[in-house]
């Protein structure tokens, strides 16, 4: 799990059975003490592998939305909750957004979820220290300019944050057979080739299934061109076939493109 604190932005990403939405009101209060007022809220997640193990309100997206709606002030008037479908019902993408006004942000946030990780490559994430896992898995080569802060869990599992100027990326790995999972998230620019970065990150795990949610604001990002480019790179270089793709606009909060892939060997 990861926490990123910028001067006017906080991102928390947690896995397991954590109660993430409980952080909203304390964070709003802490910000108020610094004369900062909430202007936008975004909550996203994939479909849980073990949904019945989640605590309230993460028991359903509907209940999460009720809690989100109650936790944020009415001034965040542009609100929308939506479930973006995939070719498999169990791989949907859940998005809630709320904002005071349209926030034209040229940054692109890419969230990647991977399952059915390659068994051999997953072994790198057992019984070693974080630095060794970073190096031997090839994670250090995804962005050679970034500074990596890594952590190995006992007896297995791995998390890392990397920082490169004002941009972060983060990877979390659950390597156990049967419910193996890895995520990659990064902030990209509309002007760079996201496909190549994704190729390097996904190649570390060679997963059987991949989903990619790309969120962007502003008008510089051409989602049709970028979607095709990502499909092309992942298809040609990693043997991943795009099974479904959808685009949805979230008023005041930008646009989300959600693509699902499976390995051609499946």
């Amino acid at each position, binding site marked *: 799990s990861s926490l990123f*604190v910028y001067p006017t*932005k906080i991102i928390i990403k947690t896995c397991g059975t954590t109660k993430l939405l409980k952080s909203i009101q304390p964070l709003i209060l802490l910000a108020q003490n*610094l*004369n900062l007022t909430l202007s936008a809220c975004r*909550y*996203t997640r994939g479909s849980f*592998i073990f949904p*019945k193990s989640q605590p309230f309100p993460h028991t359903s997206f509907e209940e999460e939305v009720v809690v989100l709606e109650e936790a944020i002030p009415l001034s965040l008037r542009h609100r929308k909750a939506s479930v973006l479908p995939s070719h498999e019902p169990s791989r949907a993408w859940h998005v809630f957004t709320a904002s005071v006004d349209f926030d034209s942000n040229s940054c692109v946030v890419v969230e990647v979820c991977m399952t059915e990780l390659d068994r051999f490559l997953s072994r790198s994430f057992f019984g070693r220290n974080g630095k060794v896992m970073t190096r031997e898995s090839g994670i250090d080569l995804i962005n050679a300019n970034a500074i990596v802060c890594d952590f190995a869990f006992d007896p297995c599992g791995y998390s890392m944050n990397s920082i490169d100027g004002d941009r972060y990326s983060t990877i979390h790995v659950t390597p156990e057979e049967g419910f193996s999972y890895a995520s990659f998230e990064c902030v990209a620019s509309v002007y760079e080739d996201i496909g190549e970065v994704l190729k390097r990150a996904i190649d570390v795990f060679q997963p059987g299934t991949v989903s990619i949610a790309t969120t962007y604001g502003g008008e510089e990002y051409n989602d049709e061109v970028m979607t095709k480019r990502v499909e092309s790179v992942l298809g040609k270089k990693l043997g991943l076939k795009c099974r479904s793709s959808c685009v949805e606009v979230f008023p005041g909060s930008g646009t989300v493109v959600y693509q699902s892939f499976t390995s051609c060997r499946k």
Partner: protein
Amino acid sequence: VDVSGFEGFEKRLELRFFRNQDPLENSMGLRLIDFESLEKVLQTVQCTVVSAIANKSFDAYVLSE
């Protein structure tokens, strides 16, 4: 409760704020929140900080779970 392993799929929350005062004042913004207060928030979420790094732009924490 179903038979389960560790839930890898994350929940992600992003909160953005605006300044109520002169932007030149308090340019560190949320980065001024003390570590103890952050830890208290994380306790309610049921995780803790296990590692941290920072640069001039932002702070990054690796959390348990």
